[in-house]
């Protein structure tokens, strides 16, 4: 038989390196994801902690305003009790006080309190509300059962 038979011999060289590279890649990706996830979790927790602190600061401010209102002469009320603007209206011998205290960047504590001239009070509203302005998207006709029945 003439000619030399050439055979391609599959060599094992490089297999270990390939496997190692694959393993290192997987390990690196897993490690990076773990670190990013933990950092994101901590960031979220800090945001929540700040919002709780903001709420209680606003609550304390609103309580101080209420305390000053209970002691003030409501027929001649102070301009800004506790450093907060208060809208005071009189109805049937009682005074309705409305005011807001900022609680962080996008929220405020809104309070409505009914007071009498003796300084006794009843809290009607004490809630957080958003201070962001937004516009409702009404470009799409959405099903509304109430209007459908008309």
């Amino acid at each position, binding site marked *: 038989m003439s000619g030399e038979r050439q055979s391609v011999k599959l060599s094992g060289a490089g297999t270990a390196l390939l496997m190692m590279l694959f393993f290192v890649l997987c390990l690196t990706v897993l490690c990076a994801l773990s670190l990013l996830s933990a950092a994101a979790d901590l960031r979220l927790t800090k945001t929540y902690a700040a919002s709780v602190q903001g709420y209680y600061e606003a609550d304390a401010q609103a309580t101080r305003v209420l305390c000053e209102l209970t002691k003030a002469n409501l027929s001649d009320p102070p301009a800004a009790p506790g450093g907060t603007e208060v809208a005071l209206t009189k109805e049937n011998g009682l005074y309705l006080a409305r005011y807001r205290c900022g609680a962080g960047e996008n929220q405020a504590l809104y309070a409505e309190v009914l007071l009498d001239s003796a300084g006794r009070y*009843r809290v009607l509203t004490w809630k957080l509300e958003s201070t962001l302005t937004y516009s409702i998207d009404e470009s799409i006709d959405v099903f509304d059962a109430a209007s459908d029945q008309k």
Partner: protein
Amino acid sequence: MKTLPRRNGSFLFLTELLISILVLAAAAALCAGLFADARALRQKSAALTKAVALAENAAEAFKGRNGELAKLLSLPEGETARIGAYSLGYDARGAACKTENAAYVLRLSLAEENDLKTADIEVLGAAGETLYALTAQALDAQAPNAQAAGEAEP
């Protein structure tokens, strides 16, 4: 046809294996350090979450009525919280325990001025570091101007 001596082929494979192991060990050491950092971040996040929950609970008990704060402080029946400082210990799961063995220590400082009660709430970690702090205020329910249910009618 000349072939590589068997000896040189083995040498090449061994060299490659050695380099692979070295690179793998270096990568594993680096990743182990990063995993440790991730674990520390998770522990910090868990501690802060727990501290916020404890502080919020104490603040709501302070602002609540019917002796909520007395229940939190485990005071004898009929006794109310007085002006001063209180310390409460909590273990890692949030159950009350002695402050000496506590994972979290809740420190309450009560003050009063002109019918306005103030509670400075601070949560400390096992090493004594401040994890979280907030201040709550409430009107004194015993003051003459206190809310009387149904009396301030529109």
